[in-house]
């Protein structure tokens, strides 16, 4: 991970933007997925 960040630091702005985009989209989906699990779990828990 450290190497990847270091490589991106020295890369073109467009490559940096792609790096941020991949990280950002993964981060958004992962966080949202966590909220999804929370809501579904709360629903299941609420039924019992």
């Amino acid at each position, binding site marked *: 991970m450290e190497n990847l960040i270091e490589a991106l630091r020295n890369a073109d702005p467009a490559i940096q933007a792609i790096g941020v985009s991949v990280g*950002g989209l993964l981060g*958004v989906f992962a966080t949202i997925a966590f909220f999804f699990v929370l809501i579904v779990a709360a629903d299941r828990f609420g039924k019992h």
Partner: protein
Amino acid sequence: MAVVEYSQLMQDVFIGFTSITWKMLVMYGIGGLLIWLAIKKQYEPMLLLPIGFGSILVNLPLAIAWEHEGVPGFLHILYDAGIANELFPLLIFIAVGAMIDFGPLFRNPLMIFFGAAAQFGIFATMIIATLLGFDLKTAASIGIIGAADGPTAIYVASKFARDYLAPISVAAYSYMSLVPIIQPPVIRLLTSKQERRIHMALHEKPAPHWLRILFPIVVTMTAGIVAPISVPLVGSLMFGNLIRESGVLERLSQFAQNELAYLVTLLLGITIGGSMLAEKFLNWQTLLILAMGLVAFVFDTAGGVLFAKFVNLFLPHERKINPMIGACGISAFPMSARVIQKMANDEERGNIILMQAIGANVSGQLGSIIAGGLVLALVPLLVK
């Protein structure tokens, strides 16, 4: 000597006339256009009207409203008090949080993913902006226009690209108000008539009260762990929501939704307008930013719709999602949901998908602040 003094006197008397430049005249035109859009077309009037007036005010000769003889004018004071330190967007978020009802999302939890997919425009636009020559921080701020979320756009731009704050804010709010014009053609382009006619079952079961209280707290804590820098954004939005959902602060909730929202919106609008100094605003970058704002909204809409179509590949026939719902994953709440409901009804009278659309739309609010927070966290890792 007397002639020189007279000439100087005349110059002082008519300084208002003599110091007008063509750029100022253009800014009066832009201010007038924004006011016209606010009044005649009713496009985000609460913001476009103050922005339009502020842009005229600050471009009057000598820009007294901004600064005079080294003393900050009232617009400059407001700018320092509310924009430079990011206070106004955060106060707006408390108000917005108090307005959001996550109930429709709790009833249709799958809709939450559209709040992530429709952030695609942020990142696509950021890449395009770097290809057009903007540095990464500025490109990220331009991309955030695609959050379709004015306060987030202002917050990120005030951290990363203060020089471009005015065009970014104007683009964010203008395109938000143009959602009914931008989204339908993109959706029609990407979906078939049959897909637009898909009906979706409505889940009536209300969410338990404890979930409504726990949700804003968990969201804040999660954001604080995933991207600590996003805490002011997420925290203020969720604080407003907690006030609403607690059930014991009804008057505070009403205050946040009304007086606080109106007051801060008014101050925010005129202050953004006040930052539109002709010399800073009138350049090619502004035009590019406005163009890329539109690109961001188009990609957001496309991202949401295409993601819905992708999800449909794995769903049984009776559970298929109307792909138009994906477009509601942007944060323009509740306008986007209304647009999609109207489109669904136009395609087939009586097709009600409003609750699912609102579920996706409030997810867009979540997705946009998370995306904003992640951009704030990731970009400084790569550039100082």
